[in-house]
């Protein structure tokens, strides 16, 4: 008998149908993947199992867990179930922990509540659990607070809380989406070990087919609240019989078609567009005590590189390695501690805002978060036209409207969108808007800070196509900051690998990614999930 049996689950919130018909069954000890794009109902399915639905939600159908009918169970019974037999891991390790409680308290809390154990027993169990998830007491005493831990360590604490009572089912909702690839690999390995040790079942929710292909036994693909395809992971992903599965698989391995760089002026013979030399940025660190000496944290450490006109360069590295700090200095949003940045032959460090205008006009930016990068109170025309502020002669109202309409067309949006507000667009469309804003001044360089990591695979493929296309048509050079090597491989010529503030490897993208020389690059590469490779490996295992 299945541990969890979901039959014809439907869910509506305030008149809109979120789930249409979801059927999932999970056997004891099995890892089930739940895949879908944002808005497909993945998280709502998970919350239905926990019965943690938002107010006003109406669920129908049947959810049977270990002989209990969840949808009709009283709240008191659900409280006993949650955290005891069903554990849950959330996406964002920064907000899933209570900032004013120590990690020991947070792990022990659930143990005491559910088992009635006394404080000492609960603490010793918490200690053992934290040790198991890779936070041994010697280095991470129970008295640590969440803010004293890194993102990956926090996610381990969240896992410890979820697994402390040896649940029969663990639900992991995008557990690694907020982490870099190396941490992702560590957390996934930990989850797999825990499943193997305790025989619990795992429902792994993800939008990343490569992760799911690697981890899960079976797979359910949902779209718009309904199951598209379900079955053995390897079979589904290697046969790709369902058109939607094929579409997802193609999108996640998508490489935009690019015209080879043979543009005039490209190549090392031309003058570099951007030259960075010996760039360093120190941040003061608050002294630990009253008499301790103030120390410095070196975020960027003697970085030198150049970008030529029309060149597409990737800057890859783990989170916290200094990528974004470097980008901000190039954009003159942050001042370097030492070193020089020359853009189009002109030094930009330490210049006044007025003197920076020509440089700013030729250098624009696209940020990661398509939700945070627009003022929610302005209309598209004003948002996209913002960089026109840099023009020496401000265009008139009619001319401005034309320019915005043209930029919208270039990024594949309709000029009719000009009077809309940003919340009327989807995530992918907003990223197009961000690109439209970046190209309106016809810049020579666009710095893109993780421009596709917040997007679904199919949208990501479209945006990468757009970047590649603009590179071909307008000859814009890119500095692409990413922790995702697939993105780097898809659209860049040159790659810079950054590690702890230093550039540790540079070279043509294919050469570096096929034959990494530095440890940092090798670690990134080894950790990066790869759909094709995983499938081949697993197929070989099954037959061999």
């Amino acid at each position, binding site marked *: 008998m299945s541990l969890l049996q979901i039959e014809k689950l439907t869910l509506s919130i305030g008149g809109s149908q979120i789930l249409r018909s979801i059927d999932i069954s999970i056997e004891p000890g099995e890892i089930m993947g739940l895949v879908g794009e944002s808005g497909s109902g993945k998280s709502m399915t998970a919350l239905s199992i926990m019965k943690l639905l*938002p*107010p006003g939600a109406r669920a129908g159908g049947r959810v049977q867990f270990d002989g209990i009918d969840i949808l009709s169970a009283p709240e008191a019974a659900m409280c006993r179930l949650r955290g005891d037999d069903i554990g849950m891991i959330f996406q964002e390790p920064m907000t899933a922990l209570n900032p004013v409680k120590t990690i020991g308290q947070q792990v022990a809390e659930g143990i005491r509540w559910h088992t009635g154990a006394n404080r000492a027993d609960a603490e010793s169990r918490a200690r053992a659990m934290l040790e198991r998830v890779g936070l041994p007491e010697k280095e991470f005493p129970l008295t640590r607070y969440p803010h004293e831990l890194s993102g990956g360590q926090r996610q381990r604490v969240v896992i410890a809380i979820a697994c402390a009572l040896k649940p029969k089912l663990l639900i992991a909702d995008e557990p690694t989406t907020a982490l870099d690839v190396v941490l992702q690999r560590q957390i996934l390995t930990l989850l797999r070990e825990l499943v193997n040790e305790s025989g619990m079942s795992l429902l792994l929710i993800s939008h990343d087919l490569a992760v799911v292909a690697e981890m899960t036994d079976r797979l359910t693909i949902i779209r718009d609240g309904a199951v598209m395809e379900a079955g053995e992971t390897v079979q589904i992903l290697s046969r790709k019989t369902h058109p939607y599965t094929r579409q997802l698989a193609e999108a996640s391995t998508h490489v935009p078609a690019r015209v080879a760089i043979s543009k005039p002026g490209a190549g090392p013979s031309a003058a570099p567009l951007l030259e960075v030399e010996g760039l360093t940025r120190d941040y003061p660190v608050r002294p630990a005590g009253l008499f301790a000496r103030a120390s410095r944290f070196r975020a960027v450490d003697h970085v030198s590189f150049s970008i030529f006109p029309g060149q597409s360069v990737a800057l890859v590295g783990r989170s916290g390695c200094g990528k974004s700090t470097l980008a*901000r200095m190039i*954009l003159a*949003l942050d001042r370097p501690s030492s070193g020089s940045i020359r853009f189009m032959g002109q030094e930009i460090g330490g210049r006044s*805002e007025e003197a*920076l*205008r020509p440089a*700013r*006009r030729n*250098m*624009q*930016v696209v*940020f*990661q*978060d398509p939700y*945070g*990068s*627009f*003022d*929610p*109170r*302005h209309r598209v025309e004003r948002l996209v036209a*913002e*960089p026109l*502020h*840099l023009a020496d002669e401000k265009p008139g109202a009619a001319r401005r409207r034309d320019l915005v309409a043209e930029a919208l067309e270039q990024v594949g949006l309709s000029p009719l969108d000009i009077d809309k*507000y940003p*919340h009327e667009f989807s995530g992918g469309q907003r990223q197009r808007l*961000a690109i439209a*804003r970046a190209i309106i001044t016809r810049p020579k360089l666009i710095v893109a800070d993780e421009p596709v990591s917040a997007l679904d695979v199919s949208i990501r493929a479209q945006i990468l196509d757009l970047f590649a296309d603009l590179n071909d048509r307008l000859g814009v050079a890119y500095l692409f900051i990413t922790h995702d090597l697939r993105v780097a491989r898809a659209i860049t010529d040159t790659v810079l690998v950054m590690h702890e503030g230093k550039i540790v490897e540079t070279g043509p993208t294919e050469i570096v990614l096929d034959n990494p020389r530095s440890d940092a690059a090798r670690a990134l590469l080894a950790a990066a999930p790869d759909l094709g490779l995983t499938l081949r490996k697993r197929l070989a295992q099954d037959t061999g």
Partner: protein
Amino acid sequence: MSLDPVPAPQRRRMRGALSNRSFLVGLVITGAVILMALVSFFWTPYDITRLAVANRLLGLSPEHPFGTDHMGRDIFSMIMIGARNSIAVAIVAVGIGMGVGVPLGTWAAARGGWADEVLMRANDVMFAFPALLSAVMITAIFGPGAVNAIIAIGIFNVPVFARVARAGALALWPREFILAARASGKGKVLITLEHILPNIAGLLLVQGTIQFALAILAEAGLSYLGLGAQPPMPSWGRMLFDAQTRIAVAPHLALFPGLAIVVTVLGLNLLGDGLRDVLDPRLRQER
């Protein structure tokens, strides 16, 4: 207080606002008081400058719904004109607070560093003074009167708005849309005007209604002490003072001005509360 304004289409927001009970009740009460004050410019049931000692201390009657005072003046008419006085004082006082406090606060947030430090410490010093006592001191030095009361109340509104504006602006500055504006070469003043102010406007509006209620209370307090509006201009606080010695004979003299103050302050607080919910979709959902 959310800084993630999610502007719903205007029409939907209006409907949401009107279905919020405290917002609706607050709006009706505040609207009624303001209407009363406006009407008093053109018409009051009786002329309150004419004394009719024969009619002194009358109880409630159809001719004088709230009765008359010790000089035979109609209390309802006095309350109408008193509303004018209270609202005028509160509007100007809150205006001074916003007009000075918001630029200071947003400037501190944009400038950072020592300027921010100096300004906020000065703010803390201001907060350390008991506002009403200091207002008493100011009017004692510069003489009693509506103008001095306004200035005294206004000064103590400045640090409140400076603090709210700074906190709101500080949370916005690291956001990506501000970075994008900086990458477009916009200076701090322009960014503050175009991006910061519209996004903290809701926050300031809510604080404004709360300060408005406090200003009305403060004005009533000062008038009660004889430091606010001077006779013959009626004010609610002064009416309370006049009623004090006759409370045993004519309790209605104290009842109606007191009710006017309570209802107005309550209405404004409800309005502020409702506004916060209306402007903050997150709080609304938690209901």
